[in-house]
């Protein structure tokens, strides 16, 4: 080499967002100013914070001295109702969402079926569980039936969407190979798609079981039965020790479901 190197000696990673320097600074500064102003608009009443902390301490006390016995009948009834609601709604949700999930997979379903199934999924996902529960309680009255319908409906959106995405991510060559043998559409689903998505479907179903149990506690508060209703009653009566007992039971059950589901998922891989 006769000449000295003329290549640049510094290099900076180009910005990913807002490539124009002036605009970038303006946008970041604007966002910061907005955040500061927004924070100031939240009025903090220190009097209420103080009282709240006091009440919070009562929760903690109730939590530390949980009372399982006084309201045990109510607690056990609510618990059984919640568990029944959870299991039945999850099973019903799985049964409905498998066909919808298959129909919502672009690589298996023709366009009209695809759009119809995607529509159901969007409808199910656009409402939060509590809102569905309020509607269904208004329709069918208080009690676990409204809760069952709420959780089953919410499960469909969740399971079908994730199942459809997993089917769409399937290895195409395996599907092609089974099609090439002269297999019918259902045989392709059974031989090429099902083995590929089964572990994920089992995992998602167990995860949904877990979610449904936690949700059953929440929707009980708006009248859909279960342990949530019991919890609500306990708090309304200022029985924080019973409420503490209920929360401890909910946490314990969620932990048990969590650990056993991760076990089962490893086992079906």
């Amino acid at each position: 080499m006769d000449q000295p190197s003329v290549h640049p000696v510094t290099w900076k990673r180009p910005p990913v967002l807002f490539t124009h320097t002036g605009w970038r600074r303006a946008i970041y500064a604007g966002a910061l100013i907005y955040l500061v102003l927004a924070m100031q608009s939240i009025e903090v009443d220190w009097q209420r914070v103080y009282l709240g902390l006091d009440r919070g301490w009562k929760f903690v006390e109730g939590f530390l001295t949980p009372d399982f016995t006084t309201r045990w009948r109510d607690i056990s009834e609510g618990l059984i109702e919640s568990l029944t609601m959870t299991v039945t709604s999850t099973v019903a949700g799985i049964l409905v969402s498998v066909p919808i999930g298959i129909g919502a997979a672009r690589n298996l379903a023709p366009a009209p079926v695809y759009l119809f199934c995607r529509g159901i999924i969007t409808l199910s996902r656009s409402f939060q569980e509590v809102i569905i529960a309020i509607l269904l309680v208004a329709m069918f009255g208080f009690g676990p039936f409204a809760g069952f319908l709420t959780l089953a409906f919410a499960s469909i959106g969740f399971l079908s969407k994730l199942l459809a995405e997993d089917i769409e991510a399937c290895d195409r060559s395996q599907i092609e190979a089974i099609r090439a043998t002269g297999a019918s559409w259902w045989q392709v689903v059974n031989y090429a798609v099902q083995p590929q998505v089964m572990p994920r479907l089992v995992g998602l179903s167990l995860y949904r079981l877990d979610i449904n149990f936690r949700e059953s506690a929440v929707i009980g508060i708006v009248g859909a039965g279960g342990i949530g209703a019991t919890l609500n009653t306990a708090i309304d009566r200022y029985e924080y020790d019973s409420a503490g007992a209920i929360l401890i039971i909910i946490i314990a059950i969620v932990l048990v479901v969590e650990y056993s589901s991760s076990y089962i998922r490893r086992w079906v891989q």
Partner: protein
Amino acid sequence: MNVLKLDKLSKTYATGDTALNQVSFEVPAGQVLGLIGPSGAGKSTLIRCINRLVEPTAGSITLGGTDLAQLQGAALRRARRRIGMIFQEYALVERLTVMENVLSGRLGYVSLWRSFLRRYSPDDVSKAFSLLEQVGLSQHYNKRADALSGGQRQRVGIARALEQDPELLLVDEPTASLDPKTSRQIMRLIGDACRERHLPAIINIHDVMLAQQFTDRIIGLRAGEVVFDGPPSGLTDEVLTRIYGDEDWTRMRGEEAGADEPRTPAVDLAEGI
């Protein structure tokens, strides 16, 4: 007698790319036909048009009297079961057992219910066992397909195709992900199976040397058109240039013939990628 006849077969993709342009040839019973050509020449499209995994735009495909290009629905599935296919990356269903993979070759013949319950007829089952023995995997029938090595998987792929009792075998780059030695074993296995059954085959293959050694006839494809059709011995440097474009073919051949052993690691590396 010709088993397969392609007449002016053309394929233009929705993007406007012409993959095949008026391809016509006939394949007699028992002939192993090697299809060579550069990447993107339309080799893969050609064999997928024959069993209609890809829809041809124009032309006819006649297999034993039926025009495959016109079939729909159940008739198409009945035609597909007469054509066995072997794939580049084996395309086994990984979470199914070896036996289920082989038996899936019968899917075009059994009812949904029987296939769902895996209740295949004794004939189908004994045929599957005998094919697994032929490809040297008789011990592995209950293993999951993803527990096998590359060469073993391709053997299962061959057994699955033969389980169909096909009238024609389509083979898409059978050795592309295998080492040189296994590649030769697989090519020999496919060749023997075809000769035994008097079965015609179309083998898509990158490796010109393997094609020359294991096929009865070569068709060279370039940009979707047949530019060579003749015996393997007819692949002169001039012909290779016509198929692949300019390259020093003599020198490549000299290397192939000259030092076989020292070359192997480089080939392994290249094939591994």
